[in-house]
């Protein structure tokens, strides 16, 4: 049984387990630190940088930083929220995110965070990059326009599905998700039951022909902003 330690987030003392990552400790204590690439159950990755916090005066990502006793953490400061907004806006201008008709709307973590941070439109000019759709598989689709390169599918496929369907190719602004086949997704051993499909925070990796099943008003973030389940896990749906 690992020992308990205490640390402080935005002036509030919380308890954490030795060896925990900061973001998980914050979750347990009901403190929401925005994130996209982090998902419980997966190896910490630290690519989106949304969970950047200030620990003892230094910036670092909460999802890759282990807790330490008496750590002093800044999380919801205006400065950090501004940085997070910029990061989310960068993801919006980098891809082609048309929330208005995306089937993931209302269930999308990127959109959810944008709403939570109060972003209406990005301040950066759109990059208008051309990205493709891989619809070759009979049941599964990758829309690169919406991929935020969080590697959740890469890690889930590898670590939870025991496959290696996805990985990144290229680098820099050309970096993209590729699949384990020279013949697009159809050539891989991906399966409609793979957990990787559910790991995508946005509408990039989808089961085909399932869009819009959930009516507006009943979607994940229609009633409660993203993060509410962390901040008040008991009140599930009645958060006003």
């Amino acid at each position, binding site marked *: 049984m690992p020992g308990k330690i205490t640390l402080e987030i935005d002036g509030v003392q919380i308890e954490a387990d030795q060896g925990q990552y900061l973001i998980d400790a914050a979750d347990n204590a009901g403190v929401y630190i925005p994130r996209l690439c982090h998902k419980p159950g997966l190896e910490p990755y630290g690519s989106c940088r949304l969970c950047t916090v200030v620990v003892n005066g230094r910036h670092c990502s909460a999802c890759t930083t282990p807790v330490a006793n008496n750590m002093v953490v800044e999380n919801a400061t205006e400065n950090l929220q501004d940085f997070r907004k910029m990061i989310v806006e960068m993801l919006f201008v980098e891809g082609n995110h048309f929330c208005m008709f995306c089937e993931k709307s209302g269930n999308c973590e990127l959109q959810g965070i944008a709403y939570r941070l*109060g972003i*209406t*439109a*990005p*301040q950066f000019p759109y990059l208008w990059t051309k990205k493709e759709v891989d619809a070759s598989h009979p049941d599964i689709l990758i829309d690169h326009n919406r991929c935020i390169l969080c590697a959740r599918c890469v890690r889930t496929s590898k670590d939870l599905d025991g496959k290696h369907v996805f990985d990144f190719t290229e680098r820099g602004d050309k970096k993209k998700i590729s699949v384990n086949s020279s013949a697009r997704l159809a050539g891989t051993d991906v399966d409609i039951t793979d957990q990787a499909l559910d790991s995508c925070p946005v509408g990039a990796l989808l089961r085909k022909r399932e869009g819009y099943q959930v009516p507006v008003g009943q979607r994940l973030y229609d009633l409660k902003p993203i993060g509410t389940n962390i901040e008040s896990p008991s009140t599930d749906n009645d958060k*006003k």
Partner: protein
Amino acid sequence: MKRINGKILLIGYGNPGRLDDGLGPAFASKISMMRLNNVTVEIGYQLAVEHAEMISNYDVVIFADASVSGSEPYQFTDVEPTLDASFSTHSVSPSSIMGLAQNIFHAKTEAYLLTIRGYEFDDFGERLSPQATENLHSGIHFLKSALGTTSYEVKS
């Protein structure tokens, strides 16, 4: 000295694509994020006659808009209902809306206009000028206290 209470509707309007013209919506979305119990927030490009009906269901309506030449950092005034037709169909003024609300929906709603001073309107872009952002914060601070226990004075 007055105090704002009751069921409140906040309408922030303006075009967020025209720099400081987005002050109204920005204001409204900030207030909306506070998730105040008695405040309903509505955001739009402009006031439309439909708002008259909506307004009539509230005790208080606060219009939040940008101003090009009003006093800094913001101005808070009563809205007198009128039905003079000095407007274009494209946009309706708060007093016309209140005129409509009173005339056709018999609204008893108290109405206030919060105009936040902006500076840059003649360009396209979804951002606020630095000074406008400061004014926005002052406005928020003001409204927070006006909705709280502190009373405020109506400037005219």
